[in-house]
């Protein structure tokens, strides 16, 4: 079996992690296949998640949250990640929206919205990606305008691939006002807002992705988060940072699932007189994924701890963790299916779910290639500019 999490977790973190795993084992894993097949989460699952209070895991207690540290948030996402990619995505986007608001919202905004997000009364989504723009934020075309004689803004544009769009009650919508990046809270029931479901995904099939269209949606000035001009440089990075931490730990949970499934199967299943695990090539696959699991565990918890310490390096650490854990999960899922053979490819097998959904963790919150580009820039940036050419020919 996979090794336990590092010994330096404190007693409360260990106890909560055990509680998360127990909850997932009883209330998530038995239903995950149904949710993926039906492409929707059950209302009961969302109600249970809301009742747990875990949608407000990292929100301050004064706003109805648990006030937990980010390490505990990471453990929560890891435990859910093993159970259901789609239900984990609710944790992800709720945190992205809520933590951006907790960081940059006014006192009034926080008092109005955060308790309802923490309790799960409202499900949130993070509306950033567009049909023609993703990681290149400057190319977003969603626009806010201020009609003459009005205090309110008018929102027009289309957002695509928005996780939880189908079930969200409120969106954090990024766009530009007079060319300046801006983020605003937009309730789902705003006139002019419509959601079209995106179905038939290879994984995350119950995550409720959708395309959101805004046609002259009125946005009160009290719904602007932060200041115009700082939507991309300060508001979005907070949400994306929590999204990366969540996704990294989600991938870690799938990676643990792959190791546990593979080890259990290889120790039990016989081919002739030998167990599958007695074949050297199978032991090689298991050694690789188990080593990746340990490495990914340390990277993910390091990213969480950096954020708990409010370190400037926390952003880079989250990039590293998400980059490594998502690729390791994809590799492990492929090997886990290979080890189980036909038993691993049916939808009823967790390895099939890991195979289909792990790849998506390499895409959301920045693709692997975007991570390589960003990390490469960070690392190379420290080496300074190229040397100036010396004088003469």
């Amino acid at each position, binding site marked *: 079996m996979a090794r336990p999490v590092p010994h330096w977790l404190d007693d409360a973190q260990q106890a909560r992690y055990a509680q998360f795993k127990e909850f997932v084992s009883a209330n998530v894993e038995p239903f995950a296949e149904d949710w993926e097949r039906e492409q929707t989460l059950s209302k009961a699952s969302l109600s249970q998640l809301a009742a747990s209070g875990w949608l407000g895991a990292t929100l301050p207690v004064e706003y109805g949250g648990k006030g937990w540290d980010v390490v505990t948030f990471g453990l929560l996402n890891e435990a859910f990640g093993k159970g259901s990619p789609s239900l984990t995505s609710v944790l992800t986007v709720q945190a992205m929206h809520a933590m951006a608001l907790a960081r940059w*919202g006014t006192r009034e905004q926080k008092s109005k919205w955060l308790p309802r997000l923490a309790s799960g009364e409202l499900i949130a989504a993070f509306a950033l990606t567009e049909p023609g723009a993703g990681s290149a934020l400057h190319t977003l075309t969603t626009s806010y305008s201020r009609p003459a004689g009005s205090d309110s803004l008018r929102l027009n544009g289309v957002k695509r691939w928005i996780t939880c769009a189908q079930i969200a009650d409120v969106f954090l919508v990024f766009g530009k006002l007079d060319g300046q990046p801006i983020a605003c809270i937009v309730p789902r029931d705003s006139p002019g807002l419509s959601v079209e479901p995106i179905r038939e995904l290879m994984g995350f099939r119950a995550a409720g992705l959708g395309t959101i269209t805004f046609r002259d949606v009125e946005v009160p000035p009290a719904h602007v988060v932060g200041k115009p001009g700082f939507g991309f440089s300060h508001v979005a990075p907070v949400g994306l940072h929590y999204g990366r931490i969540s996704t990294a730990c989600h991938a870690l949970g799938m990676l643990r699932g792959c190791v546990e499934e593979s080890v259990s199967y290889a120790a039990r299943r016989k081919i002739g007189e030998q167990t599958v695990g007695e074949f050297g090539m199978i032991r090689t696959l298991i050694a690789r994924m188990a080593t990746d699991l340990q490495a990914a565990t340390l990277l993910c918890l390091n990213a969480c701890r950096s954020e708990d310490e409010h*370190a400037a390096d926390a952003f880079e650490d989250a990039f590293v963790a998400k980059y490594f854990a998502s690729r390791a999960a994809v590799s492990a899922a492929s090997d886990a299916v290979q080890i189980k053979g036909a038993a691993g490819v049916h939808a009823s097998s967790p390895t099939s779910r890991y195979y289909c959904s792990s790849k998506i963790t390499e895409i959301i919150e920045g693709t692997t290639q975007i991570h390589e580009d960003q990390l490469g820039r960070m690392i190379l940036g420290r080496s300074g500019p190229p040397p100036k050419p010396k004088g003469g020919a």
Partner: protein
Amino acid sequence: MNTKNTGGSGDVKETLRHFVTRSINFPDLGDDDDLFESGLVNSLFAIQLMTFIEKTFGVEVDADDLDIKNFRSIDAAADFVLKKNLAATTS
């Protein structure tokens, strides 16, 4: 949030300079050079700098402080830290 350095202008500037040059390793960078027009910083630098300021100097950057003038250069960021610390001690 830790408060590790609440010293005078010189200390604050030196600490900021160390962080900036560690991040972009450009030893010739002047204290009044525009960090964001230099082309040397990555897209996360703005929020990394803000996080460093909060943790290192024990100041809280809130939405009202979101003004590029506060973070444009080492000089600007040092002035911002001193102003925030002064406001905190007089309030």
